[in-house]
């Protein structure tokens, strides 16, 4: 659905990305992991269209990103930023409603409001609706932002926010600042979206968290793709030791059977 080929980004003589080819298919949750400075966020920015690569091309539904009308693309592709600085006293509900901007003229205010409420409910943040956004805690803000990006690609096919419209959601370290419960709640929600047909790509720091929910894992190091495949195939002692420089042993999650890293 969203496919980047041979992406190269150079900044101040450094190759932040070096010929990375990555496709985000629909109905999948891809976890992008790698050490600090590996180029994960850069790759996400290129795939989202915010950053133009020095070489390579990103296509969404076989059409170059640059050829998409902005609003058309925004209704199908949303991006959750690492952190969002907003120093003006908007209410959380206003923030989520801003996600509906690309629907202006196609959706009524009442419908936008219903979507915003549904999105806030989905991320367990409806109680925050009337709170002033800058006064929320980091984790609360993150959930409100997630509701905003959800509202942005919410399809009008049915009230549940699912449907046949091809959609992509890019999450840049979405579990930052979240407590244990909300980390898992967010990932479960991302998994749910993937099951409904959305192509989800999430930059994650915790491979164990990724393994619980993702069906595919991509490892980036020094701007290059090191591994790409099903979680079981990628999360091996050899790959993790080589990429992170941390000797680990791979165990199995007691109930789910997914791989679980334990440092040795």
């Amino acid at each position, binding site marked *: 659905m969203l496919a980047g080929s041979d992406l190269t980004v150079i900044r101040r003589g450094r190759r932040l990305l070096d010929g990375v080819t990555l496709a985000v298919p629909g109905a999948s949750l891809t976890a992008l992991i790698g050490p600090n400075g590996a180029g994960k966020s850069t790759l996400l*920015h290129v795939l*989202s*269209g*915010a950053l133009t690569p020095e070489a390579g091309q990103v296509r969404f539904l076989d059409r170059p990103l640059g050829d998409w009308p*902005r*609003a058309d*693309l*925004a*209704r199908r*592709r*949303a*991006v959750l*930023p690492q952190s*969002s*600085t*907003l*120093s*003006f*006293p*908007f*209410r959380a*509900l*206003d923030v989520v409603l*801003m*996600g509906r*901007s*690309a629907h*202006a003229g196609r959706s009524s205010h*009442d419908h936008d*409001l219903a979507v*915003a*409420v549904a999105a*806030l409910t989905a991320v367990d943040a*409806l*109680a*925050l*609706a*009337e*709170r*002033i956004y*800058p*006064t929320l805690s980091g984790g609360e803000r993150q959930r409100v932002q997630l509701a905003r990006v959800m509202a*942005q690609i919410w399809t009008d096919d049915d009230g549940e926010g699912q449907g046949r419209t091809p959609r992509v959601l890019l999450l840049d370290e979405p579990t930052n600042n979240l407590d244990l419960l909300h980390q898992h709640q967010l990932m479960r929600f991302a998994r749910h979206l993937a099951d409904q047909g959305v192509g989800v790509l999430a930059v994650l720091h915790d491979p164990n968290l990724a393994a619980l929910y993702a069906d595919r894992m991509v490892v980036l190091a020094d701007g290059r793709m090191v591994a790409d495949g099903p979680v079981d195939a990628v999360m091996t002692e050899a790959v993790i030791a080589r990429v992170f420089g941390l000797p680990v042993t791979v165990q199995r999650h007691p109930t789910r059977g997914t791989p679980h890293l334990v440092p040795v």
Partner: protein
Amino acid sequence: MSGEVSATATVPAPGQDPAAWMRRRGGRTRLALVAMAGVLIVSVLLSVGIGAVAISPAEALSILAGQAGLAPWTDHTRVQETVLLSLRLPRAVLGILVGGALAVAGAAMQGLFRNPLADPGLVGVSTGAALAAAVVIVLGGALPLGLAGVGRDLLLPLAAFGGGLATTWLVYRIASHDGRTEVATLLLAGIALNAVAGAAIGVLVFVSDDQALRDLNFWLLGSLGGVTWDRLLIAAPLMLAPALAALVLARPLNALLFGETEAVHMGFDVERTKRLVVVLAALAVGSSVALTGVIGFVGLVVPHLVRMTIGPDHRVLLPASLMLGASLLLLADLLARTLVLPAELPIGILTSVIGGPFFLWLLLRRRGLGLW
């Protein structure tokens, strides 16, 4: 609103019914907008009515009706009529235009910079416009390329616009990096540009003759006085058009507050919005400066008052700032010309006396809350 609450006896818990909450807030917003329109009307009536020759609202309306070909219903004097039509009214229209343009330009620039301290005066835009205008005033006779032949009434606003545009662009380039705007860099860039432009104006004062010196003096302190319908007609569209055009940028400005990348992701043409805001703000501030000189702090104080009372949404903030800015400048002008009778206080001094402490209060409040 209070009736609903007492009727149901229980106050709904937060988040229980966002739709009802939005409706209540929408009602409050409309009420506030109507109140601001009322304040503007009262300000206009006070502004045209108070002075050496008093004109009551009824007399003012009657004189206007007479001008429109209707039968006047008060027995006002010819002096009142002359004072209203050729002194007070153009001055009030100028006050509305300048106050509204400065406030909207301030609000739009604060959105662009994602920072509520971006006042056209503080960041050097007004001074840049004043410098360009001062060049025209002092060196006007010696301009090359036949520009000297162009009417000064036209050349002055154009030069001020150019100066405002150049400084806005410069400040934005200096203070904005990777889609973020550093508030410290922004204000420091403003200080630097103000210093450079101020020095250049000083040089112009130094080399100017007596006539130019008198003209320059009017600039540096700011005044709504001495305006004529002719000059107003040229500059009015230059102030009104950008102020009204800025209203359609409300949605992208809202999105820009999250950062440029986020606004792009939400589907906005951020580069276009940035260019438009810079050009519109420079046009509004430049033409205001061309007619009235530097009037500081309106663009800072007014949007702040609106945010505190109605909220930060640009769809309301921009029109509300337009009305409140017009009202405040009319009232400030009223004070400026009545406080020290028979002399007239330069209005720029007055707005700075009010705006400076307000700005300091903002800084202190920000330190406490980390919030605007």
